[in-house]
Structure formats: structure tokens, C-alpha cells
């Protein structure tokens, strides 16, 4: 993993409650870089989050709302956050239900900017 990618992900995974962060090729749903706890199935998260992001983007565009900047899914036991970065890359973060989403969002947007 290149230093640039590692730094981008490290700043996200330092936030309390984060179980992992990934850079995903949005079109392919494949992992570009990852920093994950062992229990996280990175391949599945990457493929499904990319698929979800693609559908959400289409939904938003159908609503004439433009492309989404930030996607946040909250479940009883966890959180999934996706931020589109340049060149079709997605920054994806998984964490527990109490993860500080505000702080994670900030770090993910920074990471996305750093990838530009």
C-alpha cells in the first residue's frame, strides 16, 4: 500500500469505534487499500458498499439532487459510511454503532481530498 493511501486510512481508523477503512474502486467494487480489524470481511464490504453507492447515486440523480457527497447507514450494531473521492474511488468506513460519525466524516472528506 502506498504511503499516501496508508496515511489517508490511518487518520480515519484512529477515530474511536472505527473497525476499518477502505479505498474502493467504485465501478469494480474491488479494494484499492484497506486498514481493517480482523473480523471485517473487506472484500464483501468493498463490493457491497460500492454497489450501494452506485444505486444511491442513481437514486439521488433521479431525484434531481445531483451526486451524493456523503452516505451514512446506521444499524443496531454498526455503522457504514461512504464518501466518494475523485477518479471513481470511494472512501468506506465501518464501525460500531457508537462511532463518532461527525469526526469520521471529517477525516473521510480529508482523505478524499488528499487522494485528489
Amino acid at each position, binding site marked *: 500500500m502506498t504511503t499516501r493511501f496508508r496515511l489517508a486510512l490511518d487518520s480515519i481508523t484512529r477515530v474511536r469505534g472505527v473497525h476499518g477503512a477502505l479505498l474502493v474502486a467504485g*465501478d469494480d467494487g474491488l479494494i484499492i487499500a484497506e486498514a481493517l480489524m480482523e473480523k471485517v470481511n473487506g472484500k464483501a464490504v468493498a*463490493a457491497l458498499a460500492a*454497489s450501494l453507492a452506485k444505486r444511491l447515486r442513481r437514486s439521488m440523480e433521479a431525484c434531481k439532487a445531483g451526486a451524493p457527497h456523503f452516505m451514512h447507514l446506521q444499524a443496531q450494531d454498526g455503522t457504514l459510511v461512504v464518501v466518494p473521492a475523485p477518479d471513481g474511488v470511494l472512501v468506506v468506513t465501518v464501525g460500531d454503532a457508537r462511532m463518532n460519525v461527525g469526526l469520521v466524516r471529517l477525516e473521510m472528506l480529508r482523505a478524499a481530498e488528499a487522494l485528489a
Partner: protein
Amino acid sequence: MRTTRAVEGWTLVPLERFIMESGARLALLMTPAGQVLAQHGFTRAVDVMSAAALGAAIVSSTGEIAKMMDEPEFRALNHQGVEHGIFLAGFETLRGRLLALVVYGTDSSMGLVELFFQTLKAELVAACPVEERREPVLAADFEHELNASLGSLFGR
């Protein structure tokens, strides 16, 4: 109209589930010789056979390249187009090696297909029955019908 069909019944449910989950458009399960066991999405049987022949050829030829590289096998092969991608992979069952050829569009992705292919593979390996002794398929006097079929095929 149901577009998933199986020559071997045990392949049908896993394949249908795979199609639903991965969002693939076309899929074939076949032997390494290009004989189709199950298919999804194709309309003409002859098109299925062509796709299977070409898919099996890709796997065979890249398998030879793998051997030259001292690589046991390529786990999967992906060909990425603008509107469609092709995923090809092989796996072992009690009936021997099988191949999957999957065509997906922009509504799916390589990652999704790869992800759900793992499930498909596991389900097929678990469902695969041991081969049975076969009874005669054709009647002993099939020649008359064969001659008539070939005659009509060649306009004779």
C-alpha cells in the same frame, strides 16, 4: 419467463441465487470441455454453446500460461469492457472440474460477482451428487431418426 435453466438439477438453485445476489446478466456453468450444465439469460441454445466453447478455451489457454509460470492455476479471470465485464473461474467438485462464465453489466461489478461467486462455488460443491451409472439414453434403432434429422439439415 424463467431464464435460468439447468441440465443438472442440483445446479439450479445455487445459480438462481447467485444471479439474484450478484446482479449478473448472463451466466454459464460448464465442464472444461465446454459442455453446459446450467445457464442464465441466454435465449438461443446455439449461442450458449458458442459462449461456452469460447469461455472454456480462454480458461484452457490461460491455464497453459499458468503452467509455464509454475502457477497451479489462475483463480479467476476478468475481462473488463465498457458496458460489460466477463468473469471466468474454475472449481473442483465430485463430478470433476467445473467452470463458471459470468457476464455482468454496469448494474453489477467485478467485486460483487467475485464475492457471490464464492458462495455459488461453496453451494455447488456441497450440492454436487456422485455420478451414477447411466441407462441407455437412445433407442437401439435411432439411426432412422438420425438420418432423417441429418437429411433435413442438409436439405436431402
